């Protein structure tokens, strides 16, 4: 039902150039897209909002290419994923994405400590690909198949990232007093 209403809104934007239909789509998905970026950037709110804005603008300009085969949400995540990795590449043109872990440059200096600090500190222990898989799987509760679709990785690779990320994260959480 949800995806049907999304398709109806997309059709209104593409065929009738109805901007208010796109406004509804942005309102509906802004939270999940911004949360995705907050997790990927380990809490950099300003950067997250900039990347989320880029994502929606890219989605708007390439809305014609949305054929409705995937959920609108999956399609949007795919754009968000590409926007994030384009950003990472532009920041680190010569480094290998797979072996790079997020450094402090992507981490916002959090004013408040506690819960938020813990999640972003925990996510910082992971490599980018692991972080993407872990957050999409555990926080957004997406299936492995969907994550593979979003990231363009094989399902086996997604499972490996999940397994490694899970181990690192569990160790970090246990070291910091969780799960006792």
């Amino acid at each position, binding site marked *: 039902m949800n995806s049907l209403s999304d398709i109806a809104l997309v059709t209104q*934007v593409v065929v009738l150039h109805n901007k208010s239909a*796109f406004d509804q789509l*942005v309102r509906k998905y802004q939270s999940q897209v911004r949360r995705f970026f907050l997790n990927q950037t380990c809490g950099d709110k300003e950067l997250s909002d900039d990347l989320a804005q880029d994502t929606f603008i890219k989605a*708007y300009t390439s809305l014609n290419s949305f054929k409705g085969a995937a959920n609108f949400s999956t399609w949007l995540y795919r754009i968000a994923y590409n926007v994030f990795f384009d950003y990472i590449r532009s920041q680190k043109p010569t480094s290998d994405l797979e072996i790079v872990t997020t450094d402090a440059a992507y981490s916002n200096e959090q004013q408040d400590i506690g819960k938020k600090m813990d*999640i972003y500190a925990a996510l910082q222990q992971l490599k980018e690909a692991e972080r993407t898989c*872990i957050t999409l799987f555990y*926080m957004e509760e997406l299936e492995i198949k969907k994550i593979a679709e979003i990231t363009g990785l094989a399902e086996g690779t997604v499972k490996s990232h999940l397994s490694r990320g899970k181990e690192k994260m*569990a160790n970090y959480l246990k070291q910091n007093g969780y799960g006792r």
Partner: protein
Amino acid sequence: MEDNERLIMDFMKQNRQDIVDDGFTERVMRGLPERKPQRDWLPAVWNGGMMMMVIILFVAFGGVELVKDALIQNIDMALAQGIDMRVIFGLMCAFVFYISQRAIQKA
């Protein structure tokens, strides 16, 4: 392993936050470029019109009769020369199959 799974699942759920819009949508809407009007239908209409015209002219100038006569003449000639009708039928089937495959590939 099960414990790790549960630990992470609970931790992630606890930290899952819904982000309030707080003017974000308006900023996105202000930053949207103008959409170029779609002209996708123009080539389709043009092609369709041209195709219709070709068919009308073909029928109006007796194209159907011409093709039918030529076909009958060729079949008569083939029969007169002792060519098996099954060979002609097989060739025609192969031709139709080839054309339909091309059409599917194009579509």
